[in-house]
């Protein structure tokens, strides 16, 4: 039963990922990514990480996919179909296959783990997060803040300062 469920989520995850790298249509790629991420959320459920599955669906499924779709809509969509893969794609296939094979062999040769996944007491997550991992947690919030401010500054329209600079640059 568990194996069947695992095969199902693996098909979703790998299939979605292949869709992301194979399709020409960027909107389809974003939706394939959503499929792959939901498959990964299913894998987390099989591993008794219910909170992570929830976070995965909320943040990836909700936020990131929407941001991707926004970005696709805001940049010219008519350009996308003519952007093909670059000429080195056979090399990319070889590189990716070799890396996956090396990783696979390393996992294969690793000492076998006989234990089974366990469902730990859920409250332990919060206790661990706010005691043992308190400092990284605070740093993560800072990272988010800095990234947010940086994104706003980078993406917003031309400022007054830029407009004043522009004529000077053209004269110079």
């Amino acid at each position, binding site marked *: 039963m568990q194996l069947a469920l695992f095969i199902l989520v693996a098909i979703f995850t790998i299939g979605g*990922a292949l869709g992301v790298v194979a399709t020409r249509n960027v909107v389809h790629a974003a939706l394939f990514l959503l499929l792959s991420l939901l498959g990964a959320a299913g894998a987390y459920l099989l591993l008794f990480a219910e909170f992570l599955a929830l976070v995965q669906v909320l943040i990836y499924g909700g936020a990131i996919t929407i941001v*991707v779709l926004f970005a696709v809509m805001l940049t010219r969509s008519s350009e996308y179909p003519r952007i093909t893969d670059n000429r080195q794609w056979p090399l990319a296939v070889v590189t990716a296959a070799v890396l996956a094979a090396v990783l*696979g062999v390393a996992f294969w040769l690793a000492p076998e783990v006989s234990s089974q996944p366990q469902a730990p007491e859920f409250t332990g997550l919060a206790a661990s997060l706010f005691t043992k991992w308190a400092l990284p947690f605070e740093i993560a919030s800072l990272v988010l803040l800095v990234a947010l401010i940086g994104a706003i500054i980078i993406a917003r329209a031309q400022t007054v300062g830029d407009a004043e600079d522009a004529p000077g640059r053209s004269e110079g």
Partner: protein
Amino acid sequence: MVPLLYFQLLGAALFGIGLYGVLARRSAVLIVLSIELMLNAVNINLIAAASYLNGIGRFDAFDGQIIAIFVITVAAAEVGLAFAIILRMYRNRGTVNVDEINLLKW
């Protein structure tokens, strides 16, 4: 029961597919999507290891899950910044094709 190895192989395959996407794609948006795939592969491995190795040695089931939460946090920050840069790139250069962004290439 599903052995740990299966989850690890799933993560390795996903990482390889993401790597292919990063290397072969030309559209900046698709490259960012492929990076998301790679981060996701790492998360699957972290959570699988955390879940199976709970209580063995110094491992705690939550260490892996919490690192995965941090990875998701950084991924969210990365996507926001990446698309801000892509929007700016598109406004300045009129394209999202990374092969045409060769301003720093001599």
